[in-house]
């Protein structure tokens, strides 16, 4: 498949997968998003819908055009998926990063070695050697693109949802090829500033992966602006903040390992909850958000563990919070719409800067 004219695509399932290595190996990284309605019976029903949908996609051949699929050791459900993939899905081949659960200094040598090994394996697979000389430029390329994405995310409230979702769906398409104009600039040019934007409640989303922009549309229809998120199929999946890499003096493998270990942690990592809450709070402040919607996918155990404490903590900080439970394998519908509408209305009623 070469739909974007940017090379053969290599899919990956987790925001911790090192896209830099994919580029260094001469492939184009393509984020695989979960489908809405998984139906495979080859995983038990108490594994989350996203994971079951990934297996369904693999078995049905939807991913067969990809050169490979990248897995990262994350939660127990993903661990199960990575194991059964090789047994059930003949193509595309799985490439695994056994990333450490710990995010501290003790894990750095382990992670660095695992990344080097993945580089070797990808290199053998594609015939492109992946060494320091290849990795360095890939780091710079991805860094540059992440700077563009970071700037875009900072003003995402001005980007139409379809364009925003396209960025989340295909984050590594170069902006100057598939997106002849920066969506934010295009949006700003095509429409005059809307004064009502200033008074709409600003929200941040956090929690389990979302497969579609449905919730974004629902919140927009309810009168809110989603100004940020901590969701791995959306903003978190972009791997921000941009890493610091100085090609003059930094070892690229070290830089790569440090970047991914230093990302705001997903709930599968340690240390975790306190750092995640601080990150979420800082996101709320930097985006001037008044409220947070915490998404709890059924059977998404890492997120479910943190939900109620995170909600309590944010409320103590004066942030309005609602927890939205997502049922497995079902598109959000009237139940979610009513819940979100009520939340947005409560923000409008109680927040002085929002009317």
């Amino acid at each position, binding site marked *: 498949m070469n739909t974007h004219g940017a090379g053969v695509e290599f899919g990956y399932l987790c925001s911790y997968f090192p896209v830099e290595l994919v580029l260094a190996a001469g492939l184009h990284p393509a984020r695989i998003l979960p489908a809405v309605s998984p139906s495979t019976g080859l995983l038990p029903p108490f594994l989350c819908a996203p994971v079951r949908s990934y297996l369904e996609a693999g078995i049905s051949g939807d991913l067969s055009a990809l050169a490979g699929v990248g897995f990262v050791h994350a939660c*127990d459900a993903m661990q199960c998926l990575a*194991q059964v993939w090789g047994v059930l899905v003949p193509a595309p081949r799985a490439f695994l990063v056994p990333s450490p659960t710990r995010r501290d200094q*003790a894990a750095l040598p382990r992670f660095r070695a695992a990344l080097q090994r993945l580089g070797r394996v990808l290199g053998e697979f594609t015939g492109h050697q992946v060494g320091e000389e290849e990795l360095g430029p890939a780091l710079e390329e991805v860094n540059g693109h992440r700077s563009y994405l970071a700037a875009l995310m900072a003003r995402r409230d001005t980007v139409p949802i379809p364009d925003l979702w396209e960025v989340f769906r295909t984050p590594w398409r170069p902006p100057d090829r598939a997106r002849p104009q920066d969506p934010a600039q295009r949006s700003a040019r095509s429409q005059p500033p809307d004064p009502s934007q200033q008074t709409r409640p600003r929200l941040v989303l956090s929690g389990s992966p979302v497969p579609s922009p449905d919730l974004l549309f629902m919140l927009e229809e309810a009168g809110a602006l989603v100004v940020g998120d901590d969701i791995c199929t959306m903003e978190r999946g972009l791997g921000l903040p941009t890493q610091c890499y100085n090609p003059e003096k930094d070892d690229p493998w070290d830089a790569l390992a440090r970047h991914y270990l230093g990302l705001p942690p997903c709930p599968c990592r340690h240390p975790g909850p306190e750092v995640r809450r601080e990150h979420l709070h800082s996101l709320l402040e930097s985006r001037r958000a008044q409220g947070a919607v915490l998404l709890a996918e059924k059977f998404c155990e890492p997120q479910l563990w943190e939900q109620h404490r995170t909600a309590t903590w944010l409320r103590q900080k004066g942030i309005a919070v609602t927890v939205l439970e997502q049922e497995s394998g079902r598109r959000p519908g009237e139940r979610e719409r009513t819940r979100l509408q009520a939340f947005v209305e409560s923000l409008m009623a109680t927040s002085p800067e929002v009317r």
Partner: protein
Amino acid sequence: MPAALMPGPPRLHCLSYVNRLLARHYLVARQSRHLPAFARPPLAWVTSGAPVEILRSMGIMCVYPENFSALVAARKQGETLCRVAEDAGYSPDLCSYARINLGSVLRPQLAPLGGLPPPDLLVACNNICGTVLKWYQELALLFEVPLFVLDAPFLYEEDTAALDYVRGQLEELIVWLEKTVRRRFQAARLEQVVARSAEATALWEEIRQLGRLRPSPINVPDLFVTMGPVVTLRGSQSATRFYSRLKRELETRVQKGLAAVPGERIRLLWDNIAIWYRLYRFFRPFTEQGACFVVDTYTAGWSVRLQGEDPLRALAVAYTTVFLNRSVEYRARQMQQLIRDFAVRGVVMHSNRSCKPYSGIQPVLARLISSHTGAPVLIVEADMADPRVFTEEGVRNRVEAFLEALS
């Protein structure tokens, strides 16, 4: 005479003894909290896969929330404590061991023995699942005590670098413990504790191997009850003494020709954790048909081999290579070997809602096992400790159909 009408062997004496042993362990732990500060040993809550030998060598008392939750579930108090946790905001989709434990922390008066004594520190190893990471992170916040997480990488394939990583963390654990509990680590003491652990786990494996005999002197529910000491008292002399005693008792059964299931005619393998609130009742239909579970995968988890001159390396290997930390291919090979060695005719897999690493790959594992060995596989959906997930009628129908097919 049909198996159902044959008198069974007398109940193992060790079953009563093990209950007293574990009750004493928890009571001693609780009473130690009342000692004056200078005499009170530090108390750690640890996961079942944590390298307890290091803590034990430093005089740290260890209690296991998982084991306690199993005990609660076996006493049919699991639902009550799960509800306490859920009322406090914890999702009902979380692991039932964790919910029971959290329920007992929030309302200790509802838990047996008044719940577990509060910890001074926490040590978690993720070699069994990722849930323990979240569980212990939550406990650290609830109790405001330090937590050490030992990261044992999942072995999707052979990975010697993972063992080096774990060994390095064991050294880090020692330094952390010395700082946290203000006690010196002594290598000689660790060697002694590791040696005792090795004795207990070796005895445990010898006991499990008795299931190869025909008829088997032991049925898996007996193993579930008697595994308590190798989990909670590993490294202590009382564990070694207990298993020596159990082994003698079973060997006596063998000498007398006593079978755990009289008229044994079907030999089965059990996969996954026990259904604790149905510990013997679940197996009754099998027993009545002369079906004996001669081996299982769960209790094998404590048949670790501690070998080598470097105790830390031995611990790193033992705790990283536990079966739950291994790939589906490894687990399939393990089960195929057990089916051959124990002359097993069929497999019953408990699809345990609370344990994703164990249960998540079972549908695929069942396919691999059946295709390689021809053994039929029954998958029973339940939960290890939350009885609300168990549907009697549905399970009974499937068990009956399975036994009929085997007959």
